[in-house]
């Protein structure tokens, strides 16, 4: 039996006999009746290339729903405090504090729910709103910006950087356990050190730390102990390959 051949009149290439269109340009392939191919083995099996979506909500839809519910839940106390303030004082006074706190909470919650996989947006979403919140609080106190620049923002920067390192490190590290608790302790100790440094420097006008030394010493000892327990109890630990530089 001779092999049936089919050609594309535009591209000039031979195509597989069962093709009705040229795979390059889409031109119809003319088959004569007697040449019509009957059966062939497919080069690749048919199967969905992309998993069909499961019934029900996708992860994205679920996150969106949680975000909506949370937004409404935060809006209720916000409106209640605003209306009470307006009814009692005929103007917005003390309610600015809870309102700004609720708006801050909304931003902080929204970022991971709306942009879970976009690290830069997530990071900005978690660090920029607290900075603006501090600015608002500082401003509504007496209409001036007093402590924001020397104290507020530096403390926020310290917390943001250390928290990011601890969170990313904890997510990435294998063999999670007491080592995570140790990292959180170390992070907390460093944050205390940073806060102490910033506050002491601001109050005394000279660089120095005081009370945080007790905290950092305790966290190093306890964190170190937790790490020792964690890695001592890990079975078959192969340090050489894990720590290769």
């Amino acid at each position, binding site marked *: 039996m001779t092999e049936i051949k089919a050609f594309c009149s535009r591209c000039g290439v031979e195509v597989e006999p069962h093709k009705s269109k040229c795979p390059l340009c889409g031109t119809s392939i003319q088959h004569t009746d007697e040449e019509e191919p009957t059966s062939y083995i497919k080069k690749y099996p048919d199967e969905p290339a*992309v998993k069909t979506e499961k019934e029900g909500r996708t992860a994205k839809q679920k996150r969106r729903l949680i975000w909506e519910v949370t937004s409404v839940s935060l809006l209720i106390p916000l409106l209640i405090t605003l209306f009470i303030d307006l009814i009692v004082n005929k103007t917005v006074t003390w309610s600015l504090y809870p309102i700004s706190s609720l708006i801050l909470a909304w931003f902080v919650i929204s970022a991971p729910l709306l942009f879970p996989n976009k690290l830069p947006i997530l990071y900005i979403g978690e660090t920029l709103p607290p900075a603006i919140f501090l600015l608002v609080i500082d401003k509504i106190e007496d209409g001036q910006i007093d402590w924001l620049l020397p104290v507020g923002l530096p403390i926020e920067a310290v917390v943001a950087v250390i928290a990011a390192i601890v969170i990313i490190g904890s997510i990435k590290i294998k063999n999670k356990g007491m080592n995570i608790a140790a990292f959180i302790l170390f992070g907390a100790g460093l944050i205390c050190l940073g806060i102490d440094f910033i506050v002491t420097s601001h109050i005394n006008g000279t660089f120095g730390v005081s009370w945080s030394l007790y905290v950092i010493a305790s966290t190093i000892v306890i964190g170190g102990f937790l790490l020792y327990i964690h890695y001592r109890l890990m079975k078959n630990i192969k340090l050489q390959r894990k720590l290769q530089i």
Partner: protein
Amino acid sequence: MNSSDFQTIKTVDESNQNHKQKAQKEDWFRLDNAATVFSFVTSARIPCMFRLYANLKTPINVSILQQALENIITRFPYYKVNLRNGLFWSYWETNSGMPIVIEETKYPCKKMPIRKKGIFPFRVRAYYNRVSVEFHHSITDGTGALIFLKSLVGEYLNLTGISVSDWQDIFRSDQEPHNEEYDDAFKKNYQKYLPGPPRVSKAFHLPYKLEPKGVYHLTIGIMLIKQMLNKAKELNVTLTEYLIAVYLEALQNILFSFPIKKQKRLLKPIRLMVPVNLRRFFPSKTMRNFSLYVTPNIDPRLGHFSFDEILEQVYHYMRVEVSDRYISQQIARNVRGELHPLIRVTPLFIKRLFGKIIYNGQGEFLYSGVITNLGKVSLTEPLNSEIEDIQFLSAPSPVTKTGCAVNSFGEKLFINFGRTIKETHVEKLFFRRLVKDGIKVRIETN
């Protein structure tokens, strides 16, 4: 080369030797330079998987193929591994499991969860009369994968009753792996004081929307190798140079087919990535990665190039650039980065975060397409008579969007285009040029 260069090579060589010994003794070894980059960037969009496949003349018996795989894997201990994370670097650890032959899928080269415990950096698929091996680029290049496929097919056919008297270069399960097969050949050939290659700008990319993740369309052009070689000879170029020129011309024609406003936005050099097997220049038995690339290009900002002009440019470029000196510069740049003390002590998760940025800066964003020629593939008789063909498929890319892998088997030349977009313009223009040049082309797809 001065004495310090020799010293560097010797030191790296000694260090490499130490790691090799460790690998055999301690069942783990470090990733090579290319492997590190591929391990950082791998994702569903950039699976870093390439495929080699053999179509046999008879349907595959999966249980015999499984037995062949189990027999042959002992000859390739450096592939029987699992990628593990250290604090500073990833490493390959011996995988105590056994790889299993799995079913074919509609689209090849799908993502492999390379960091998952127990996962091998390759997979073997069977479908009717086809055996496919898909390798993650972090474990080896086309040369290593081809030797593995040939050994697997050889063992399979042997188990089905085909007796072979002379196995030639096909690895056998009863052989001991050579120590050099474990080599990190990049480090072995690293010359510390060589300057890095000049930086290049970003290249033109096809402005088409990507298909969903995992979709990889194949367009295979089959033709007689003799016709192609004659054509290349007529033009006084090599077959690879001819194909590069055809590919560049296709991309150029696509660029100039857009309206002027869009053209201006897209107007960047058209540059191809052409992998070069470094074993040609630096003798090595390594079965791990040992290939880098040259980048023939045209700059459409200088105007439209005729095919003859493209061919001339490619011809001269390849004569100059495909040399051990220029390739050594790339090795120096890549390995120098890896050996930098600051980079070495940076925790792995931070390296991975920056890995993608580096890849975007130095990787595929600099190229408009990929064309890789594996050359003539052949086993030994009587195995060749049992095989219809062996073909090669490059890794999917969301950046270049099309890639082209070329090899010949017997009398035929196979040009496998893979694409992650719907549009077939590159393939259409490419094969139409071949037809125009008098080549008879048969097209197959998945």
